């Protein structure tokens, strides 16, 4: 990303963004509400164009419909997706861009089974999306994103609405995908704590400019206090994990 600025209508969301995210990394995207985290996701997906500068994703300019980028959206609306089967929602990730009707076919079913297995969701694939728990819904969303075998995964606030155990589950799963498949992960969150054990780097959006840094270099009390706008303390434990605490 080189000298990128982005506007929504006439409003400047952020500007002066110049950074490179290493391929294969697990990067958190963090910033206060309204700082433009979702805008960054949308920009990488090609849904909006930068007003200045240039962005390359996986060695090519951004474009919509790139199957090499998997998206886990902020919240699947239960009003819309709740009535259909988990496995059909996953199948749509692959077949949903094709003409015609129906989600049948042995090849499709096998690919869906594979995607469900990758997120350990075989046991509830046959249930309606609205009937499974929040954590299970996130697993289904991740399976759907993985079905095109993307090289990059964008997750937009996948931890919202999950309890602590559920958050840890999802982070472990994403870490596993990042580690085993070499998928580059951009993980949008407003809470860094559940991620700190696994991320390599972060993009932080403060004062109208996204900046990139390696975890060890940038996670300190000063940065987090600026990010959250409230005093935050950083403690390093014996096994190298970093914890942040709001006082």
């Amino acid at each position, binding site marked *: 990303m080189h000298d990128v600025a982005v506007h929504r209508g006439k409003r400047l969301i952020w500007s002066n963004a110049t950074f490179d995210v290493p391929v294969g990394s697990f990067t958190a995207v963090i910033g206060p509400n309204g700082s433009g985290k979702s805008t960054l996701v949308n920009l990488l997906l090609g*849904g909006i164009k930068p007003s200045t500068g240039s962005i390359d994703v996986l060695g090519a300019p951004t474009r919509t419909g790139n199957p090499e980028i998997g998206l886990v959206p902020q919240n699947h609306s239960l009003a819309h997706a709740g009535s259909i089967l988990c496995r059909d929602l996953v199948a*749509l990730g692959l077949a949903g861009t*094709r*003409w015609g009707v129906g989600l049948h076919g042995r090849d499709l079913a096998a690919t869906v089974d594979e995607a469900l297995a990758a997120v350990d969701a075989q046991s509830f694939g046959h249930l309606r999306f609205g009937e499974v728990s929040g954590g299970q819904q996130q697993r289904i969303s991740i399976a759907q*994103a993985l079905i095109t075998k993307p090289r990059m995964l964008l997750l937009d606030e996948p931890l919202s609405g999950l309890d602590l155990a559920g958050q840890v589950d999802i982070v472990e799963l994403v870490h596993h995908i990042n580690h085993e498949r070499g998928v580059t992960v951009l993980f949008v969150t407003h809470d860094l704590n559940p991620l700190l054990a696994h991320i390599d780097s972060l993009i932080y959006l403060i004062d109208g400019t996204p900046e990139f840094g390696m975890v060890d270099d940038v996670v300190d009390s000063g940065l987090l206090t600026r990010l959250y706008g409230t005093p935050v303390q950083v403690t390093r434990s014996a096994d190298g994990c970093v914890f942040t605490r709001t006082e």
Partner: protein
Amino acid sequence: MFIATLVSDQEAASGLELLNTPFMINALIAGTLIALASGAIGYFVLLRDLPFATHAVAHIGFPGATLAVLLGVSAVFGLIAACTIGGLAIGAMGHRARNREVVTGTVLAFATGLGILFNSLGSAQTNLLTNLLFGNILAITTDQVVVFAVIVAIVLAVLALIGRKLLFASVDPDVAAARGLNTRALSAVFLVAMSLIIAISVTVVGVLLIFALLVTPAATAIRLTAKPTLVVALASVIALVSVWGGLIVATYQPWPPSFVITTIACVFWVLLPQLARLRGPVAAPQIATQTASS
């Protein structure tokens, strides 16, 4: 009996013999065509959270029909034109309008008021008003049946083409857009298809009872099965049974078909999911254990 009152030779007109009269054949064909289309349309209406919009579009069709009659044109063409404009307007308002029931309700009331004005400026037929508001499947002409057949064929062909993309864009708009689907275009195409089917359904059940054909059968089917193609097929069958049932009952009883059609659709909606639950108590407990074990 209801139908017998419409036939001049009441002695000869009784029971199933009436099914062979021309207006009855038109009614059966038109009802079948609309039932076939309403299953698919109704499913997407539910997925896209548009039930209230169907009501609004039907009401916007009402002044179109009375204005058409005022101008000496067929009411059906007025309905088709006004419903399509209404559907496109709802599409243009996009997500903002969907949550604004007040806006939709206000437009709906205004449209209905206009409809009464146009009617009073014209012939002020109470017959026309009753037919538009409550439907009159027995008044459908052969010419109209031809128009309906063309519309239903086009709508079903389009849905067969875009069905999977529309499903993706309906249940999962963010990911569908990220995967390169033109969700706005899909939405516009669907709204036009929906408006056309609403326009012709008004002739059967009327502006006020449109829910019974366009929403209730799909709402029943979606509680019975989660498979998209099955929901569509089942909803069409429920709509078909409602329409045919309405026509057949009206040959024996002094009740208007619109009443019987809406009643059958509502009874299905109440009873079928209960029956399904009695037959297969699988779904509910399984969900409970799945959720608990996560």
